[in-house]
């Protein structure tokens, strides 16, 4: 079958696919986690991942993957493997009530960013920065500081602050026009309305 897309036709791809070089399995970059701050003073929220070869590339790719709509005041990216992850709990069980003694530890003395999962199936939110001796130490300190009567926390991420690439205040202008980019929102095309009008017109 021939493509109707002139760009594809120009590629002159042979139908048997023999033009494509063989690629080794899992030949791809590592993953980076992307956090987005929608408006100033709101917490950064985990949005997803990008593949990249380093922090700078993760940063520029994250910008277009996760901040193409609504508003954005800043992003932060960090390599997935830098994240210390607690076990996951559910229902009324808060992971902060668990004893971490037997869990693996990571990291050395320094600043850590702590992200909490407030609802199962939702995204982690940045809760704050803490100075600690290790990742597990940061978890313990978080558990101690967290009010006992507050709603349960289902998962905790602890990440060394210096492993992040945060957007700088000067870089903020890259999101200046974002609120006006209505054409990038699916709803803005009003496809449903157009379809209804079309159906009514041909009745």
């Amino acid at each position, binding site marked *: 079958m021939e493509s109707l897309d*002139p*760009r594809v036709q120009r*590629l002159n791809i042979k139908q048997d696919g023999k033009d494509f070089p063989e690629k080794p399995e899992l030949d791809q970059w590592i993953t980076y986690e992307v956090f987005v701050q929608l408006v100033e003073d709101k917490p950064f929220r985990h949005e997803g991942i990008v593949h990249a070869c*380093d922090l700078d*590339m993760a940063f*520029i790719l994250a910008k277009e993957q996760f901040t193409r709509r609504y508003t954005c005041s800043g992003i932060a990216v960090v390599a997935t493997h830098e994240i210390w992850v607690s076990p996951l709990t559910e229902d009324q069980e808060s992971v902060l009530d668990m004893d971490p003694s037997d869990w693996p530890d990571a990291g050395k003395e320094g600043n850590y960013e702590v992200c909490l999962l407030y609802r199962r199936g939702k995204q982690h939110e940045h809760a704050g920065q803490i100075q600690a001796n290790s990742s597990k130490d940061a978890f313990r300190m978080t558990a101690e500081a967290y009010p006992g009567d507050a709603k349960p926390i289902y998962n905790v991420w602890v990440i060394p602050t210096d492993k992040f690439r945060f957007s700088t205040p000067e*870089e903020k202008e890259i999101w200046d026009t974002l609120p006006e980019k209505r054409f990038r929102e699916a709803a803005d095309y009003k496809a449903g309305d157009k379809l209804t009008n079309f159906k009514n017109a041909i009745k």
Partner: protein
Amino acid sequence: MKQEALKELLYKMADDQLILGHRNSEWTGMGPLLEEDIAFSSMAQDKVGHSLVMYQMLHQLGENDPDTVAFMRHADQFHNCQFVELPIGEYDFSLMRHFLFDHGELIRFELLAGSSYEPLSLAAKKLKGELRYHKMHADVFIKKLGNATEESITRMQRSLDYAFPFAMGIYEPSPFEESLIEDGVFKGENHLKDLWLESMTKVLNETELKIPDPEAVKPVVGGRTGKHTEHLQPLLDEMAEVFRVDPTAEW
């Protein structure tokens, strides 16, 4: 302020943005990796958006509406430089063109933010953040590929050598240069070219790539006065194909 001079400036900018935006959008769905496909497509969309702002400004000055201007002209009525109409080639060339073009485009917008023509200065202030991102994106890729492997360095160098005379052609002075400078509309192509050379040299100096000697290179000019390569008309035919079938269709 001389309207003819202003229109010439707006047309060449808008046509550069539209044609490069269309060219770069040809990578949509075919980028080297998913994330980059999305980022490059999104920047192509920005470029087309910038051209719309310029065409709207021209419409205010009495020119035809943006759709007609974008889709109904023949190649020899376009004022884009030849650089932007060249086929996308392989990804190394498209990246190198993006790098060379957007370094200049960001500075152009920074200069225009201080233009005496208010609609242009407002638009430049508003849009330059997008170009800042385009430059950041280009710089990361050029620094990576300009330092990575023998193959990547060779490919980027070849693209740079090929692209450079065309890139110099972006700054072909307009016949209205002095009038634009005098009226405070724009600081002029020569001034911009110097700042551009400085800006992109800084980044290339962090790579293994060798910058061709600007004094020894003959800029490829002519685009500003409607002289184009054989690549532009087929691009226009493809871009306007749907519009020409039904110019009143709503999207």
